[in-house]
């Protein structure tokens, strides 16, 4: 037998992370880090593949938000073909992205985070999961599962399958919505509305109970970035990027996403496979400068999208958005409110879908612009449930991929997630004893961001964690594993 090369850590695993916490001489937390220990390698192994295959391949990055990669990839493909896709195809892509936002947010809120919020951060971990939720709050749990199903079924109605549809392609989409499909969507809307209204009411009531968490779960100043329409409305598929600071000042607007390299830098740290994107004009914060207000740390995702937009564009969601903004005096800085923002986005997405339902273009058969390779470079950007997603492709004259750069939402929240871990650790850890509720609160702090790395492991109820506690000399004081 020839030589065997062992790759360690194991690739293509989702949801593996570890956290290290460093104490100073007095036993206080000096630093904490959130390490992502998995490596995927899509940017490398896609090199040499035909452009046409990219939506299908990159959708496989994630089983929960494959539609986001599908759309960003197809948009990068549109750019390289240098075509304007048919209007009907744009509308259908928007419909699928809204469905994706609904199903992914429903998963995050009801399946993954509601057990913490409704059963309690310190409740018995044996029951602090979706099954415990089903036992304690059967109607809400059922509604959440059905809400996710509603989003998934719209994706299936359009793309032929709930997960990894190969439906959006460079130049457009493959199939329209059918008349029966449209009927099914209309039928499902009332129940979906009812579920999200109930969840919103329940979450607002819980805010008093979780005041301490709201203050410590990633509550710090940072920049926020997201797509908006030219007049500042919430956007998820097209539009330009807007960056606001935590005081609500628009510090950059109408940024062309295709020129992302002008304003987004990507840093790497030796202790995590996840890159650390930052807002380039303000620079990368060193580990000692994370608390400075003028660094380039920014957040993306539901919280950021609601912070950057001036209105949602639908009546019910706009009403909720006003209340949301009031809670933060304009800009909400606590990552605990990602949950809240998610529910508002579900509501708004349902309204947008309802508004689209009478559009005859959804049934059109003119869906695909055919063209060859007309440009050697293209950038596709869309709002994934977790935040702004960039696919940047370079091809050769025949359409073979030469270079890819993928900037994933979870990566853009990496700096903020690390800051969140530090903040929670400083609040809850004093000395070498790890309080019982610590693990779950750190998890919940990370979970508020709904990072993609949690895709598989959370479904079982817990994220695998490796918690290490060091003293000032680097000696390991305590270590806790959670598989």
């Amino acid at each position: 037998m020839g030589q065997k090369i062992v790759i360690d850590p194991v690739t293509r695993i989702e949801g593996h992370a570890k956290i290290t916490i460093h104490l100073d001489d007095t036993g206080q937390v000096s630093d904490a880090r959130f390490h992502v220990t998995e490596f995927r390698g899509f940017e490398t192994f896609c090199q040499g593949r035909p452009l046409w295959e990219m939506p299908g391949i990159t959708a496989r990055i994630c089983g929960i938000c494959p539609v986001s990669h599908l759309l960003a990839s197809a948009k990068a493909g549109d750019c390289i073909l240098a075509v304007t896709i048919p209007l009907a195809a744009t509308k259908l892509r928007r419909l699928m992205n809204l469905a994706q936002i609904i199903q992914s947010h429903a998963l995050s809120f009801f399946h993954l985070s509601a057990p913490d919020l409704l059963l309690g951060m310190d409740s018995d971990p044996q029951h602090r999961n979706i099954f415990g939720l089903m036992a304690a709050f059967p109607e809400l749990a059922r509604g959440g599962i059905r809400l996710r199903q509603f989003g998934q079924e719209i994706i299936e109605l359009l793309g032929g399958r709930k997960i990894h549809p190969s439906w959006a392609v460079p130049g457009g989409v493959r199939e329209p919505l059918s008349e029966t499909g449209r009927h099914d969507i209309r039928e499902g809307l009332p129940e979906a509305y009812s579920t999200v209204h109930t969840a919103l009411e329940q979450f607002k009531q819980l805010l008093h109970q979780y005041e301490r968490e709201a203050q410590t779960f990633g509550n710090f100043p940072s920049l926020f970035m997201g797509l908006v329409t030219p007049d500042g409305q919430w956007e998820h598929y097209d539009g330009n990027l807007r960056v606001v600071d935590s005081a609500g000042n628009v510090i950059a607007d109408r940024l062309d996403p295709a020129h992302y390299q002008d304003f987004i830098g990507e840093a790497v740290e030796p202790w995590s496979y996840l890159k650390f994107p930052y807002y380039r004009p303000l620079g990368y914060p060193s580990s000692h400068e994370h608390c400075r207000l003028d660094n380039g740390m920014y957040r993306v995702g539901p919280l950021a999208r609601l912070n950057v937009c001036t209105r949602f564009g639908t009546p019910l969601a706009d009403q909720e958005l006003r209340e949301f903004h009031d809670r933060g005096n304009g800009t909400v800085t606590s990552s605990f409110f990602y949950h809240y923002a998610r529910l508002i986005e579900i509501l708004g997405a349902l309204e947008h879908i309802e508004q689209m339902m009478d559009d005859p273009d959804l049934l059109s058969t003119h869906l695909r612009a055919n063209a060859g390779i007309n440009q050697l470079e293209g950038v596709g950007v869309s709002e994934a449930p977790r935040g702004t997603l960039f696919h940047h492709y370079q091809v050769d004259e025949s359409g073979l991929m030469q270079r890819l750069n993928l900037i994933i939402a979870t990566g853009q929240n990496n700096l903020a997630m690390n800051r969140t871990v530090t903040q929670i650790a400083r609040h809850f850890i004093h000395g070498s004893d790890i309080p019982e509720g610590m693990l779950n609160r750190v998890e919940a702090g990370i979970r508020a961001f709904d990072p993609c790395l949690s895709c598989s492991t959370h479904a079982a109820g817990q994220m695998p964690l490796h918690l290490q506690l060091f003293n000032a000399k680097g000696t390991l004081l305590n270590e806790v594993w959670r598989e």
Partner: protein
Amino acid sequence: MAVKTLIIDDQLISALEEETLLQAAQAAGIHIPTLCYLEGISEVGACRLCLVEIAGSSKLHPACVTKVAEGMSVRTQSDRLQKYRRLIIEMLFAEGNHICAVCVANGHCELQQLAMDLGMDHVTLEYQFPNRLVDLSHDRFGMDHNRCVLCTRCIRVCDELEGAHIWDMAGRGTRSQVITDLNQPWGTSPTCTSCGKCVAACPTGAIFHQGSTVGEMVHERTRIEFIVNARQNHQWQF
């Protein structure tokens, strides 16, 4: 024209003496898996999937190139044959880069279908992950060597049906690959007529229509069948 009688899978059948075991079995409704075989072009017995057991012989015989004989007793299904056939498919998967989930021929691929028919739920051999190239230089078609199983259907269909013979084999062993003309990019081939018969004949997603996305590559065989039928029935002899 002499007729031979023989037994295939306990079924007594008769066949013309120039027929192969595969043709006789197919005519009798007995299924034997194949991959390199394509009706209407010459048989090469390369893939070995159609191996059958013949009573009195310790060897296995490829049904596509073995002529029928009087009194022959043939078994097309046995544990041994099943094991070898599955092993052949596993070897094909291990030696190339076959990622069905993102392949243009997903759902329309003979290799994938064979793997499913033979119950190949995993590959027991070590994947080789060869470094192979994709050729998109042709205006209409593409060639992905990662998905090529070297069945040579493209070579035979181009030579025998189209008469262009742009395809051929080059290299030895693991470096074997099909080439166009003098091992040059397909798009620069002066002899290719762009007829598309190789695209239709390919059993996998190796040769495909440019612009195909996942699962879109359907092998349209009606043109090949039309030409084969016309020749066999002498429709073009004036």
